[in-house]
C-alpha cells in the first residue's frame, strides 16, 4: 500500500512485510511429529490459503482466502478435509514440495504398511494424500506422472511437482489434514496486502501438515470429479451497478460495457487490473474513505477499473462504479494477462 488514502494497493504485491510475526509454528505443542512440506521449488507465487478471515474488515483486515474458492473447496472435499483446511495456491508455474514424516528428511521411518503410491514407491509408507485442482497442469511424484483432480498418496521423501498452468493461472494443492500453518484471527491465509498469515513460499521453507481427517480421502467421489471447464477465452463479468455509479458520466457507463478491456499483467490477489479505455468522471473531488466490498469495481484517478479480489483493502477513497458478484470471481482468479474482459449489467 502506498498510503492510507490510496486504496488500490498499487505496488504492494510483494507481501514481504512479514512484520506481524505470525508465521512461526515452532511454539505450538503437537501430539505427534506431524508430516511436513519442504519447498523445493517455490514457484512464482505460492501462498497458503483457506476461506480467509471475514468479519474483521472494521479493524483494517482484508478477507483474504483462496481466489478460486470452488477449486479450493473441491480439493478439500476430494480428500475428506473440512473445506476450510488450508491448501497451497500456486500462480502460473506451480511449485514442488518434498514431503517428510515429521521433519526427518528423505529417510522416513520404516513403513508399517507399504502401499503402492502414485510414484510407484513400494518401500516407504504413505505419509499423506494430496490432490491438485484449479488450473490444469502436469503433476509428478518423484518424476513420475500423477493425476490431476484425483487424490493420490505421497510417501515420505517423495517430491510432488506441480507444473505450470496449462490453462488458467492458479492451481490448488490440498493435503490430508491440510497445511497447518499458524492461524491469525482464525485463518491460515496469506494476505499479501496486510502481510498477515504465512509468508509466500520460499525455496527451502517448511510447512507442517495437520492430522489426517478421520473421514479419510474420498477416492472416486464421482460427484466431485466433473471435468473442469477451464477459463473461457473471454472473461464475461456480470456487474451490479452502484454504489457510486453517479460519480461517472453516462458515456463512462457505456464505455464500461463496450470498452474492450483486457486483463493487465499488473493483476494480483488484491485486484484484477484492466487495460482499456478510461472511464470519465462526472464528479471531481475526493470521495471520503468508505468500506469496499469483495468484487467492487473501483476506479482510481487514472480511470481504468480494478476488480477488488480477496486481499483488497477494506476502505478506499475512489468511487466504485459497480460490484461483480462473488460467484463470478473464481473465473477472475484464472484469467491470464491479455484475456479480453466484457462487463454485462445484471440487476442487484
Amino acid at each position: 500500500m502506498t498510503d492510507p488514502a490510496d486504496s488500490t494497493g498499487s505496488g504492494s504485491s510483494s507481501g514481504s512485510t512479514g512484520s506481524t510475526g505470525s508465521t512461526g509454528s515452532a511454539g505450538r505443542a503437537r501430539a505427534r511429529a506431524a508430516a511436513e512440506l519442504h519447498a523445493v521449488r517455490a514457484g512464482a507465487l505460492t501462498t497458503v490459503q483457506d476461506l480467509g478471515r471475514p468479519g474483521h474488515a472494521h479493524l483494517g483486515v482484508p478477507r483474504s482466502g483462496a481466489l478460486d474458492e470452488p477449486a479450493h473447496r473441491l480439493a478439500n472435499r476430494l480428500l475428506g478435509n473440512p473445506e476450510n483446511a488450508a491448501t497451497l495456491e500456486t500462480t502460473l508455474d506451480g511449485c514442488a514440495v518434498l514431503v517428510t514424516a515429521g521433519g526427518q528428511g528423505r529417510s522416513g521411518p520404516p513403513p508399517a504398511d507399504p502401499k503402492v503410491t502414485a510414484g510407484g514407491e513400494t518401500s516407504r509408507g504413505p505419509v499423506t494424500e494430496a490432490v491438485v485442482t484449479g488450473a490444469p497442469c502436469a503433476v509428478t511424484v518423484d518424476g513420475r506422472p500423477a493425476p490431476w483432480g484425483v487424490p493420490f498418496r505421497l510417501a515420505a521423501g517423495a517430491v510432488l511437482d506441480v507444473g505450470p498452468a496449462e490453462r488458467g493461472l492458479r492451481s490448488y494443492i490440498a493435503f490430508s489434514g491440510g497445511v497447518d500453518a499458524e492461524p491469525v484471527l482464525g485463518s491460515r491465509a496469506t494476505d499479501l496486502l496486510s502481510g498477515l498469515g504465512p509468508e509466500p513460499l520460499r525455496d527451502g521453507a517448511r510447512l507442517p501438515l495437520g492430522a489426517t481427517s478421520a473421514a479419510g480421502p474420498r477416492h472416486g467421489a464421482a460427484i466431485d470429479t466433473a471435468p473442469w471447464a477451464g477459463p473461457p477465452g473471454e472473461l464475461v463479468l456480470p456487474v451490479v451497478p452502484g454504489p457510486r455509479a453517479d460519480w461517472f458520466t453516462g458515456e463512462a457507463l457505456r464505455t464500461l460495457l463496450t470498452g474492450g478491456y483486457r486483463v493487465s499483467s499488473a493483476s494480483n490477489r488484491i485486484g484484477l487490473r484492466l487495460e482499456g479505455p478510461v472511464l470519465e468522471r462526472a464528479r471531481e473531488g475526493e470521495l471520503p474513505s468508505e468500506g469496499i466490498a469483495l468484487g467492487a469495481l473501483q476506479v482510481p484517478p487514472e480511470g481504468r477499473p480494478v476488480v477488488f479480489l480477496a486481499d483488497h483493502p477494506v476502505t478506499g477513497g475512489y468511487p466504485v462504479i459497480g460490484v461483480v458478484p462473488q460467484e463470478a470471481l473464481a473465473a477472475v482468479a484464472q484469467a491470464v494477462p491479455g484475456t479480453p474482459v466484457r462487463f454485462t449489467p445484471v440487476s442487484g
Partner: protein
Amino acid sequence: MSGAATALGGHGSERVVLPVGRHGLLIELPGAEAAEAFHAEVLRRRSAGLLPGVTEIVPGARTVLLDGLAEPRRLAAEVGEWEVPPLERGSESAVEITIRYDGPDLADVAGMWGVAPEEVGRLHAATSFRVAFCGFAPGFGYLTGLPEEYHVPRRSDPRTKVPAGSVGLAGPYTGVYPRSSPGGWQLIGTAVGTVLWDAAREPAALFAPGTRVRFVPEGGTE
C-alpha cells in the same frame, strides 16, 4: 446502468442507502459525527439481536457498509427510519499512546498552524481523539477530534518509507503507522512502546472504531 446509485428505499431525511452488489448496503450519513452515531446504533442493534445476519460492518468517514446480508432490500427499507441517539462521548476510558514529538514535518505543520514547533505537540496531546474507522493496514485507525483549524493537507511528495510508529496528520485525521510502509501524512512524532497490531494478542488491534485515544508526551507533560 443509469440510476445505479439511487437509493433502494428507506430514504431518511438525512440517510442515503446505496446498494453494494447483491448482499451489501452502504449507508451514507451527512457527516462524520452522524456516521459514528449510526455505526454505534448498528452495533447496539446487533448486540440486541435486532440486526439480520451480516458478515462485515465497516464504518467509513461518513458511511457504514453492511456486507453479507441475505436480504439487503428489507434492511434498506428500515434503516432510514431508525431512531439513532446522539453519540455519547467521554464515558469510556481512553487508550494512552506515549509519543515523542520528533517528526520530520513538525516545522512544516507548525508553519501551517501558525504556532512555534514546540506548540504542535502540546496542542496534539491536548486533543481527545476517537477512532472513526480503520483501514489501510491492520491496526491503522483514522483518529478524529482535531479542531478544523488544525487540519492539514497530505504531503505533495509521499515518502517511500515511513517508519513503524510514526504519528502523522492528514485532513481531519491523525494516525499511527502500525508498521513501516510508504505514506504521505505529515509526520509529527513517534509512538513509543506501543504495538498497534499483534496477531497473538487479544484483541489483536489496539484501535477499533469508537476507541478513545489520548497522546501522552514522553517524559510527561512539559
